[in-house]
């Protein structure tokens, strides 16, 4: 089939046992056994770039290892289509966007084209994010269970866009959100499932000091100088300019360096423009390092996070913010905005520090730089928090439970 990817497992399920424990894996296997003979068809808009593709890249092979026949397809779009869906993305985050009837018509046209081109063979059809949401039109022809997974912060969306998307969402059997405040009054069931990180992936596995130092040397970073790092693609919603502003406030009193590192995604045409703006803002400041890293640089990202003294994520809007979980998993103290799914990961003063403004971010950064023991304690708690709640094995468990829940309405289900 067109636009279907077959992934090989990078890690074996057994490799997760030292991390999550034998009993957790046993529970997963018991759940997976309930899906014998069923196909889970996963559909999104890209195989590469961004948090969704990254999760699916690890999750689909693990589902297969568990014996679940999960297959991953993507829709075909094109630059114009993705420009429209990027506008949708920004509008769902609450930004003002000019969305014309032509945009909506293009969205519908591409959806129709995909409806014709794609085959819908799954017993459970699991659609991710707004780009492929219109595929639900096939439900009346193929039946089966349809789920819509929203990875975006839709707590305060543009009403016009939400109304447009809602007309599709209500036909699904259930919707999944990453944070409680993303939920909307909908006539279908809504589940809360947080995304996750893979502890064994290149981005999160343990690295030796040689690898870390070589990455620092490659980018001209000074190993023994305190380093504040934000990892995220160059997107205005990640507020890279705000981070630079906060850093400049901190730099007045504490000698440190800032690293803004990120990549691009095929479904986000705005990245290059924002990257140029950030470069311009940092011009002339030798303590600020702007690094454009390609998608396959997971080891480098890992090394930068491990070398960081503090990880910052000063997003203005955030679906979930997996970079926070990545940082916490590495026991790093985190300063992050209290938006989207970030408060689920950062419990203020327990697993990191939350901020609301540039000044707040600068204050939190100073506190952590000046009190390394406190920073270390937050980092250790953070790692435990991720281990318990945001690892891929827990994520898999939640998805399997949700698939099962579609056949039951009770609050207590005996399997």
């Amino acid at each position, binding site marked *: 089939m067109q636009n279907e990817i077959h992934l090989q497992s990078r890690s074996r399920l057994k490799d997760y046992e030292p991390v999550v424990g034998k009993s957790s894996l046993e529970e997963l296997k018991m759940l997976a056994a309930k899906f014998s003979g069923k196909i889970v068809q996963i559909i999104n808009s890209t195989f590469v770039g961004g948090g969704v593709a990254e999760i699916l890249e690890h999750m689909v092979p693990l589902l297969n290892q568990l014996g679940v026949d999960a297959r991953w397809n993507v829709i075909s779009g094109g630059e114009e289509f993705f420009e429209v869906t990027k506008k949708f993305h920004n509008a769902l985050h609450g930004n003002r966007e000019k969305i014309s009837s032509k945009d909506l018509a293009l969205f519908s046209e591409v959806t129709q084209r995909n409806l014709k081109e794609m085959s819908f063979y799954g017993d459970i059809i699991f659609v991710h994010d707004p780009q492929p949401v219109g595929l639900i039109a096939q439900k009346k022809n193929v039946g089966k269970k349809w789920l819509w997974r929203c990875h975006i912060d839709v*707590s305060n969306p543009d009403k016009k866009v939400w109304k447009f998307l809602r007309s599709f969402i209500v036909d699904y059997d259930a919707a999944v959100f990453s944070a409680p405040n993303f939920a909307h009054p909908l006539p279908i069931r809504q589940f809360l499932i947080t995304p996750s990180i893979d502890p064994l992936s290149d981005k999160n596995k343990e690295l030796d000091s040689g690898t870390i130092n070589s990455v620092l040397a490659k980018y001209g970073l000074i190993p023994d100088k305190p380093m504040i790092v934000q990892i995220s693609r160059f997107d205005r919603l990640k507020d890279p300019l705000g981070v630079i502003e906060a850093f400049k406030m901190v730099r007045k009193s504490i000698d440190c360096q800032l690293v803004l590192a990120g990549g691009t995604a095929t479904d986000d045409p705005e990245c290059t423009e924002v990257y140029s703006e950030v470069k311009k803002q940092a011009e002339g400041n030798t303590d600020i390092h702007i690094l454009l890293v390609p998608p396959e640089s997971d080891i480098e990202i890992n090394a930068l996070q491990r070398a960081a003294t503090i990880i910052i994520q000063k997003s203005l809007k955030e679906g979930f913010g997996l970079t926070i979980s990545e940082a916490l998993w590495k026991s790093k103290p985190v300063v992050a905005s209290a938006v989207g799914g970030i408060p689920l990961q950062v419990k203020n003063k327990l697993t990191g520090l939350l901020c609301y403004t540039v000044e707040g971010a600068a204050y939190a950064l100073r506190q952590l730089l000046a009190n390394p023991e406190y920073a270390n304690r937050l980092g250790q708690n953070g790692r435990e928090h991720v281990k318990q709640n945001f690892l891929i094995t827990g994520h898999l468990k939640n998805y399997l439970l949700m698939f099962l829940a579609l056949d039951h309405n009770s609050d207590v289900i005996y399997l």
Partner: protein
Amino acid sequence: MVDWLTDSWLWLTHNWLYVVVPLVVFLATYVVGLWARRVAYRAFNRWAVGKWQGSQIIIQITRTPFIYWFLILGAFIAIQISKLDSAGKILADKILASLFVFSLTWVVVSLSVKILKLYTGKVPRLQTSENVIINIIRIAIAVVGALILLDVWGAPTTPLILLLAAVILIAALSFRDLLANLYSSFQLAQGEQIKVGDFIKLESGDSGYVTDVTWSNTRLRALDGNLILVPNSRLVQGTIINYGRPLKKATRPFRFYTRLYLKELTGLSASNLAGLANLIKKVPDSVIYYHTHHFLEEYHYLTPEPANDFALWISDEFGDEVLGEKLASINIFDFLSIGALRSRIEGVITDYLSKKPEERTARDGREFHFIKSVSFIMPTSYVAHDLREFVEVLRQVSIDSLSYHIFEARLKLKKGVNDFAIWIEECLDDKDLAEKLAYLDPYNYTLEGLRSTIIQVIEKRIK
């Protein structure tokens, strides 16, 4: 022909002494042999009867060869005193020596096999490997016998011995684990450290009942029903805890269940205290259960754990530490149903509002969202038939399983008491222990702390 007979007769008449004397010596040696066997076996019988079962085997096997050996001795002496030329004597010596080596080899093989069988018959764990050991012994003795024979006939044995030594060395290196396990099985048998039926725990944390001990490994039945094969050398070298025979069996085994939960959004949210109290009255039990219990698992690594969600939200969003503290201090253990707990929480908020009307509203995005806990209950493979098994399983099950039996069973499934206490009272008839577990307030502990505390209470009882 007639000439040859005539010549022989003539030679015999002139040399009859050279024939008769060796013949007499040969026959005399035979007679001495018969007499010696009688005397020696009588003496041996007197010494060995009642002392050692193997004595009869020795007599039975060596009785006939004993005479053969005297015949060989007689022949040897006779040949030495005969008129045979030196070349003939050497050949005859070699033939006699070969016969002796053959018979001696046969006797040693037979003796070894019979005596080994006598002992393996007494040690059940060696019976399965008896044939292997017997064959090894047969081959070893036969090889030694063959080497002696070759030496007798003047063949060069040094290269063969070196080759054999090399083969033995290679075999020993290749099968060193096998040999170590074999040796260890003898040690285990001798020390009687482990018996079938014992419950043992290894250094690795694996535990189970011993179901069989063979010459190479020991088989354990783990508590999840899996078979564990442990090399005997590991048992001898490592530290093991042998708890001995099983404790009192329960009338019904305890099957451990696990509970996984999924968070379902209700779409309901409150932005002020009045709205919160109002919705607390209306939402399903599973919503109240979620907001008063999810932190036990999600933040189980923190001490003290955060309070229930209602208290946290009021403290964080409104900065109302007094009301937050009142809600946080509600002891969930005092309630036997979610309905009663719900009334108490709602009562605390409405009571507070009646004294101090509250107008504040939560910031955008900081409203209280009501979440439902959908529980999925599944049996695990772990089953306990007595308290020892129960403790060992408890060390291994997930915190989801622990939560289910302690918190969910008591409150959400409305049993009023945790599952452990119910089983211990009903199936082990141990009211004292059941009461201790029933009155243990689980909300005072982290989940791992709770696990350790329950294990300690039960282990104290077992001792």
